[in-house]
């Protein structure tokens, strides 16, 4: 049986030393299946970007295992990691900061090709033209500098750079958050096209639940470095089981003035990751919290096929009153 493309077990990442020890990622386990888009969603400090960087080994994990295509990579050297990097690429949030302003497009994408010895010599020009056309730019753009492009076009260059090495996995960290809504729509459509065309698997990191529901097959909801809920996108968004997922959905503004405003506002701020609450990390803001929540870290409880959530008040958490999804299934 082929292993999942990525599997992550009990992953932990802590930064600093006590007393200033930041618990960025705590005991996170999941798989990225072949050909799927998996969403990581959460607010600031939820650990979603850190998880992406750990899989790329841009950061070293504190504990836990990561396997890429069956190979354990959590503790291998950067030198051993290098050939695998061709197979996993990142698309960044800020298309202004992630492209070198002094390089022309041909060198920005060419750098990726050179690093892995791809498309050398005469093949280079054709490959560049092909890549630019794939992302909706023109071959004539190869001689331009990043500042000559709009934000949306720059993000397309970033995507072309990631695709240049024909990766199996794309880690997209808030790829449309810096874009205007009309441009965001273009880039989301492009990513969906590319995914189908190249059979890409994707880890899609975002704080925007509407975008995640649109793009992803499955979603993981994170809070303070821990998994709150995991499941198929439609189930998590339409019938969330964890009180945090429910609160997050209720807080997201609906673009419909007649949408019912059932406002169960979460009080207070997200606690500091320097001293996360004992037991369930969400309990300090949770409307259902009891003393028992402080005593134990809640286990993942299954809620049907492929769907699980971490809350000991499983029976008290009703499937949300949000409207049911209409017939069409995600796959």
């Amino acid at each position, binding site marked *: 049986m082929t292993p999942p493309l990525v599997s992550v077990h009990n992953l932990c990442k802590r930064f600093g030393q006590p007393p200033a020890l930041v618990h960025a990622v705590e005991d996170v386990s999941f798989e990225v299946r072949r050909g799927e888009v998996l969403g990581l969603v959460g607010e600031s400090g939820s650990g979603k970007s850190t998880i992406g960087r750990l899989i790329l080994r841009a950061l070293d994990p504190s504990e836990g295992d990561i396997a890429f295509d069956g190979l354990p990579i959590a503790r291998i050297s950067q030198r051993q990691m290098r050939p695998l990097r061709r197979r996993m690429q990142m698309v960044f949030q800020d298309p202004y900061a992630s492209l070198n302003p002094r390089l022309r497009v041909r060198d920005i994408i060419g750098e990726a090709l050179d690093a892995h010895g791809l498309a050398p010599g005469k093949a280079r020009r054709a490959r560049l033209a092909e890549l630019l056309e794939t992302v909706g730019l023109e071959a004539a753009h190869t001689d331009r500098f990043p500042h000559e492009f709009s934000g949306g076009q720059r993000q397309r260059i970033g995507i072309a750079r990631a695709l240049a090495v024909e990766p199996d996995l794309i880690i997209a960290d808030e790829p449309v958050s810096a874009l205007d809504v009309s441009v965001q729509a273009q880039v989301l459509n492009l990513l969906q096209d590319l995914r189908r065309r190249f059979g890409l698997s994707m880890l899609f990191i975002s704080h925007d*639940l*509407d975008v995640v529901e649109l793009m992803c097959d499955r979603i993981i909801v994170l809070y303070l470095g821990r998994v709150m809920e995991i499941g198929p996108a439609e189930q998590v968004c339409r019938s969330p089981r964890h009180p945090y997922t429910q609160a997050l959905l209720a807080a*997201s503004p609906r*673009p419909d*003035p007649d949408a019912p405003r059932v*406002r169960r506002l979460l009080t207070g*701020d*997200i606690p500091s990751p320097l001293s996360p609450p004992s037991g369930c990390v969400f309990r300090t803001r949770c409307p259902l919290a009891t003393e028992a929540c402080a005593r134990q870290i809640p286990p993942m409880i299954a809620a049907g096929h492929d769907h699980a959530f971490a809350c000991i008040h499983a029976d008290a958490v009703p499937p949300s009153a949000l409207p049911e999804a209409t017939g069409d299934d995600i796959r």
Partner: protein
Amino acid sequence: MFAGRVTALVGESGSGKSVTSLAVMGLLPRPSGRIAAGSVAYTGKSGVTVDLARTPASAMRAYRGSEIAMIFQEPMTSLNPVLSVGEQIAEQVRLHMRLDAAAAWRRAEDMLGLVEIPDARRRAHDYPHQMSGGMRQRVMIALAMSCNPRLLIADEPTTALDVTIQAQILALIDQLRKTHGMGVLFITHNLGVVAEVADTVSVMYAGEMVERTDVRTLFRAPRHPYSQALIDCLPARAARAADGRRLIRAIPGSVATAFAAPGCRFAPRCAFRDDACEAALPDLREIGEGHVSRCRRWEALA
């Protein structure tokens, strides 16, 4: 804009939302920025109506803060990092309300309480860097509310905040609007926030207002192709294709930055354009009660 009502100004980057609000506040950067034409009629606390576009800078200073207050996207850049938050509010009320130091400090404590900062009397001594983003935005709102403004201009006040904190701040602004009866000009690019907070909405594109109507009509029956296209390209409105993709009706192209052509600025991206659209800039026209559109072909959208 009316007392106790929320007007949203919505548009993408470069549409002119912030420049509009800075013009109202008399804060356009000099000398490059100036009001070239038009007026800003404002009826103040005294009941007298003035044209803010022709008010001298010294008189504008008295209006800002006490009549019209503003909050911004990133509170950290608007707050003074070397003064405690209490001192910043006290300074403002000493200047505008002529309170003595002790009364000004009490007012600062009261204002921090009003915006629901827990343990406000103690937190008044905190510096901005000791607070979270949500708490800093509450401080900004306390500062804005401290002189009882009649108009609050909120320029993307929740854009930098997490969604659960955004919900708290939106609820707070709404509650203060109700209890204090002030008008709110809410500038945002987020249509979800518009649907949540606005009574009336002005949609801007490339420096022009293209449509103004009440919030329900905007989402139900927009009568400018840009408004309609903007609503259609929300992820929540994506349609499912036969192959399973959920494609969004994106607006083709991007906003032009120079306007050499004489016609409608949206015409190059518009699905409804005809030759006449590119000949002359369309005027705003009244197409229903309280509903204006800058589209010649608005009837084609019905």
